[in-house]
């Protein structure tokens, strides 16, 4: 079973985590120690500086090791910083990028149909997943309200919320998973005892994506939790990497 981490990063943010991973080599060392075979990766410059800078850094660093796959950040097309929608998609195709992140709070835009409609429509049609970090916006209620509106307007979009907090958020994300078949969550902070097992039983294993939230969180927690969750080996394989591999393989650029 190959672990495919959907949520890890490296770089030099303004306020570093307690144990930083400043370079891609730091990240690679920890992936090797933990036994994680593949990772969807982003450089902190994407959200701390700008996707204009961070996207290119991420692509350059990920080219150094086949375990790494670059993910990029997005901005509203109206300001043209990343080109128009089709220019941006062309750049993604050229760089082999198949997953995107949005940081609407840090980058000061509205993640909705008005600001991002053209981009989100293309992402929905092309199967490109969009990742949101739960703590990027100030609170759980706000994050899920934004996500709910995006999914109401683009119900086939692969929207993934990662790193929900230790105050369990099942009451927030499970109703959305029930309504929107392409909505998924990451396991990096899914620490709830029996959570993975209970969610697989009620909503199936297809929309849980293994992640570590490294370097903020140790890799061992989400690994051991998944390895010994009371689920079938087939379900475990999907969560460990099968679901993410399927989503990425189905992206049409």
């Amino acid at each position, binding site marked *: 079973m190959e672990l495919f981490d959907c949520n890890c990063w490296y770089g030099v943010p303004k306020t570093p*985590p*307690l*144990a930083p991973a400043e370079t891609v080599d730091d990240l690679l060392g920890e992936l090797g*120690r*933990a*036994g994680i075979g593949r990772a969807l990766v982003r450089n902190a410059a994407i959200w701390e500086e700008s996707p204009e800078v961070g996207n290119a850094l991420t692509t350059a660093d990920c080219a150094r090791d086949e375990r790494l796959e670059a993910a990029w950040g997005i901005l509203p097309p109206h300001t043209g910083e990343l080109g128009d929608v089709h220019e941006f998609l062309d750049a993604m195709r050229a760089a082999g990028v198949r997953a995107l992140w949005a940081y609407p709070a840090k980058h000061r835009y509205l993640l909705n149909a008005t600001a991002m409609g053209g981009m989100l429509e293309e992402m929905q049609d092309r199967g490109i997943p969009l990742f949101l970090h739960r703590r990027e916006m100030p609170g759980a209620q706000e994050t899920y309200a934004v996500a709910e509106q995006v999914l109401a307007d683009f119900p086939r979009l692969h929207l993934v919320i990662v790193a929900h907090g*230790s*105050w*369990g958020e*099942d*009451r927030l994300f499970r109703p959305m998973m029930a309504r929107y078949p392409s909505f998924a969550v990451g396991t990096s*902070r899914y*620490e*709830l*005892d*029996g*959570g993975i*097992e*209970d969610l697989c039983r009620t909503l199936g294993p297809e929309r849980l994506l293994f992640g570590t939230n*490294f*370097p*903020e*969180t*140790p*890799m*061992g*927690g*989400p*690994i*051991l*939790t998944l*390895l*010994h969750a*009371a689920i079938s080996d087939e379900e475990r394989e999907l969560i460990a990497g099968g679901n993410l591999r399927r989503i990425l393989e189905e992206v049409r650029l």
Partner: protein
Amino acid sequence: MINDTRLAEEFVAHGRVDDCPVIDTHAHFGPYQAIYFPRWRPERVLDTMDRCNVRWLIMSAHAALVDTARGNREVAEIVAAHPDRIRGYWVINPNYPERLQRELDEFDAHAQTPGQASSPPAFVGFKFHPNQHGVPLNDERYHPALEYADARGLPILSHTWAGRGMSSHAEVREVAERFPNVRLLMGHAGYGDWEESAKVARDHEHVYLELTAAYSVRGALEIMVEHAGSEKILFGTDHPWFDPHYGIGCILSAYMTDEDRRNILHRNAERLFGLPLD
């Protein structure tokens, strides 16, 4: 996988290690206001314990954070049903001083497992939650309970968190110096103020760092081991909030020896609470 030591190899392969039992020193019982729990009922708790080789679990009732009398009674009943696996903390709510003296008197009556007079006490000590109850740890409203515990050398598990004025390392240090016989467990290891909290444990033989949630901050464990030593760190999970495998996995990821990990997972709690591991 996770690291290359024997403990990691065994936990990864089997989810438990027979010669490395776990004592969970920070657990709860029952549903709670802001979170859904699939595994809070006793039979599910015991199943989780077996899967991870948690030999002992020491719990307080969520209900006791609200209504101490009802919640503490719940835990007494659970311990009576599972005296070989579970112990309790007696929750103190300092907002009801008129009830506090009566409840301290009751603590003595509940301090033996019902029907098993020769067994260890059902309650090993007190649980404080300054943040939930809105009363700083060093507030005099806690003094009756602290004086009671100090006279008997009881353990007290207190929620501790960064941010002066409620339950930070500063309040812990003040209480530790005033009540030197209380064995004070810093729940969540003073979350956020890692080094300062570890120094309180280093400076006071009777102060310990408890790891619930703290283990999920990469780098925090190494700071605690460096400044307080692995002999002052206790494992806990807030169960049913968190899967013990999550906490164990984080400890396996931390840069320390397997001897440090064994200290944290069971040796220190075995010594502190006198709970048998056979």
